[in-house]
């Protein structure tokens, strides 16, 4: 193989990334330096006034805070549900394993919008959940247009990614270590917490990165369940672009969102690598 071959082989993919990812991203960054006036539209200025506006406005800071809260909550709940789920599935007989994996991954085949609309039906003021609460004598819960409602629906959308990541990590685990722990006196819960989970941790952490970045930038679920009342970064960007027509401000929010997600993910990755360098096979 010649020295240039790797570059030639990667070429098509790199070109596609350059055209479809890097170029629009660069244009968004450039756009964020422009300004907007009601009478003139986009004005080609080159300054940071949009960033200053976002950072100094408590309205936008609240939106970013809410986005972070949402992403962290969804990531934690997905890990708490996804990791044991992946372990249980990996311990099933082959036939049930295939079936269960299909059940877990099946929802990915259905549009996020459809799944989220399903949640609005369940969560609505007189929806199934509230009818059930009423039947049990519990108070009505306002889940639509609330953060918990968005967290629940988004967790449902993203948990399969966590299951997949943990599942992949569990494939590397010697099942005999579980038997070894049991023979040394560990109860099933101790086996999971002390032996399975630490070995599955690289999977949980990489799953967290996927779920966190998807949750932080999710649009459809927050838009449908949170609505205008409960904006997150992605829906705020949408509104700036299409309702206020203030494209430069929307672009600035978008750039801030991308930068903060990338920063958090890189930092996280760094911590993970340092922590697990010693035990990696």
């Amino acid at each position, binding site marked *: 193989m010649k020295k240039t071959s790797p570059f030639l082989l990667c070429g098509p993919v790199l070109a596609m990334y350059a055209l479809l990812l890097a170029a629009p991203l660069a244009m968004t960054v450039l756009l964020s330096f422009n300004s907007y006036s009601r009478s003139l539209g986009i004005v080609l200025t080159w300054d940071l006034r949009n960033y200053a506006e976002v950072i100094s406005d408590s309205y936008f800071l609240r939106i970013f805070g809410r986005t972070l809260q949402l992403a962290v909550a969804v990531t934690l709940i997905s890990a708490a549900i996804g990791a044991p789920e992946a372990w249980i599935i990996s311990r099933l007989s082959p036939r049930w394993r295939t079936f269960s994996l299909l059940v877990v991954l099946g929802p990915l085949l259905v549009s996020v919008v459809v799944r989220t609309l399903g949640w609005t039906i369940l969560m609505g003021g007189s929806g199934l959940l509230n009818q059930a609460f009423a039947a049990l004598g519990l108070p009505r819960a306002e889940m639509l247009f609330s953060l918990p409602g968005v967290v629940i629906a988004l967790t449902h959308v993203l948990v399969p990614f966590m299951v997949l990541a943990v599942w992949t990590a569990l494939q590397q685990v*010697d099942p*005999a*270590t579980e*038997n*070894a*722990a*049991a*023979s*040394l*006196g*560990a*109860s099933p819960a*101790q086996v999971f917490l*002390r*032996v399975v989970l*630490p*070995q599955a*941790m690289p999977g949980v952490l990489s799953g967290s990165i996927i779920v966190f970045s998807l949750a932080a930038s999710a649009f459809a679920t927050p838009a449908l369940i949170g609505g205008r009342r409960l904006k997150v970064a992605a829906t705020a960007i949408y509104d700036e672009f299409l309702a206020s027509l203030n494209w430069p401000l929307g672009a600035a929010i978008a750039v801030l969102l991308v930068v903060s997600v990338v920063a958090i993910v890189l930092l996280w990755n760094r911590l993970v690598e340092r922590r697990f360098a*010693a*035990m*990696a*096979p």
Partner: protein
Amino acid sequence: MSFLRLDGLECRYGEFTAVRHLDLEAHEGEFVSLLGPSGCGKTTTLQMIAGFVTPTTGRVEMDGRDLANVPPNRRDIGIVFQSYALFPHMTVAGNVAFGLEMRRVAKAERRDRVQRALEQVHLDHLWARYPRQLSGGQQQRVALARALVVEPRLLLLDEPMSNLDAKLREDMQLELRRLQRSLRITTIMVTHDQNEAMALSDRIAVMRSGRIVQVDTPQRAYERPADEFASTFLGKSNTLRGRGVPGGVALAGDTVLPAETGGRVGDVLCTLRPEKIRLSAAGGRLAGTVVSRLFLGNHWLFQVASAVGELLVYCQNAGAAMPEEGDRVGLDWDDASLLVLAAEAG
């Protein structure tokens, strides 16, 4: 009173029977090996003792107590797995301490016992390493220390040496035997390696197709194999087909050789160990021709064509000149060396 008792143990997976009606007893402090080829049910038997596999029927009793409703983590059994199954995310000391933690042993005592257990296997200097930083032999010794530190009542070894090279295996066998004898811990080992089974065990249970063929001391199992399978699986053997006649057996070529037939007449199987045959220039019971010979260091292996068929012969390398390929030789042995087994089933 035996310490461990397997009573009519059976394990079926649908149509397939892995272990059929297995009875076995082990006394306190005894080392018993389950020896057999892969797929003979020996590992399934071990897993039923450990509690990882539930027997279809039959009982496992330890010290007079039925273990049927005792989960694996309450059986007080130490296990060394074939893959060692060390916890990759814990240090050597962490691995060894795990069982003590589960038993809520106080920290100071835990440290002492981990230290002592690692000294026992000569690994106390490596306590801070992670398993992947150890060689196979070291990992195996950590696994042994981890199983023994909790002072279990029973030790199970699942092919413990199969991942070690020959030299290391011999060292580990000596060390394992020394440890087992000094701790006087009842031990069940699963292996397909006859030398390992003979070197370590007080008794060997030879298994085939889910059944125990023979349980005996290593010497008796070797010298008086119960059937052809036991005779060929434990060491090398010449198997000869013949008929029982008064005073001996009639083999191929109408050669009648004296042997203790136990009054058997009709078709019988005979077995003759290669090292029991003596080669001489001429004379003896049979004449033969050397077909091939292999030099194996401390001994020679000859293939000799004779009237009763081809025979394997071991000769000690005592420095004397050995017959060459093509040479005529005489074959001789003691009457008692030619064993007559029960007629072949089927």
